[in-house]
């Protein structure tokens, strides 16, 4: 008989530190308020009552990068905005993650021109790309769940374990 069964009545759970840290990181991930274009409307929809992003511990959008873990780049990034995006990313405390929401943030989308950065991954490292123009709230939530899975397989030294496939 293991210690889990013996200690069950006393309200004690044993786990690894890694799992505990990853569980707390992924269960209360605070996004940075960062709506750049029409994708931001879908992001607001995802946070509203119908789709209810707070089920994933993400109901609180921070207006300050110092309090945020996750940057959801929702919309096209213009060349003039690019230094601002990078600066906000640099101001976020580690560990931090980035979701490129929508086609424009992922690859420039329909704006293949002089004014728009051709994918926000030229400026900041992106963890999850969410396709769509704009993606529906379900797609954004799916991307967030993928990110949670990614966070949960992070080792304490920062390396990633083998991917877990969501079927």
């Amino acid at each position, binding site marked *: 008989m293991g210690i889990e069964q013996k200690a069950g009545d006393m309200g004690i759970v044993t786990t690894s530190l890694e799992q505990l840290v990853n569980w707390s990181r992924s269960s209360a991930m605070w996004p940075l308020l960062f709506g750049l274009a029409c994708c931001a409307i879908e992001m607001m929809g995802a946070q509203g009552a119908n789709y209810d992003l707070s089920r994933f511990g993400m109901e609180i959008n921070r207006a300050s990068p110092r309090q945020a873990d996750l940057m959801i780049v929702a919309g096209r990034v213009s*060349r003039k905005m690019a230094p601002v995006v990078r600066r906000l990313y640099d101001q976020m405390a580690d560990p931090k993650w980035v979701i490129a929401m929508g086609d424009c943030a992922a690859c420039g989308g329909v704006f293949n*021109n002089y004014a*728009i950065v*051709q994918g926000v*991954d*030229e400026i900041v*490292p992106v963890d999850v790309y969410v396709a769509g123009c704009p993606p529906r709230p379900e797609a954004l939530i799916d991307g967030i769940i993928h990110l949670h899975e990614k966070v949960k397989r992070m080792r304490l030294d920062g390396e990633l374990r083998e991917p877990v496939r969501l079927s």
Partner: protein
Amino acid sequence: MALDNATVLERLRAALPDAILGSTEFRGDLSVYVRPERIVDVARFLRDDPELRFNFLENLCGVDYLGREPRFEVVYHLVSFTNRSRICLKVGVEEHNPSVPSLTGLWPGANYHERETFDMFGIIFTGHPCLERILMPEDWEGHPLRKDVPLGAEEVAFTFNQDRIYAHKPFAKE
């Protein structure tokens, strides 16, 4: 009282005969081609003349006719609220010396329009108080609305060419 175009043109020609190069009319809209160095005089006359009173600069923009001489054109639209009438002034700009006198002395609102035209076409407005880029980043090279600037920013990636494109794309590492 609405003003007819013939009267406007007649008064303009009578006051500044050497400044007007020509005129066209299309569906009731009058366009006047003006000698570049006289654009301020023409605009001031149209604004201050007690009969005409074109006292509102509606917009100002540049056009690039690549391959034509003069290559660029600056287009001004003036409105007369009292006469319920509009006039379009056009100024040809040479490619080797792309400069036009600024209208900021007449209408302070011309400031941002001229900065945008400078930003997009590289047309220099002499006498402008602060001719800097307004839309593009300071370190952007060239003027994006010129016809010789490439239309697309990068090659579109498909499965057959994505390896070649992504090998050169400047991805952010950290």
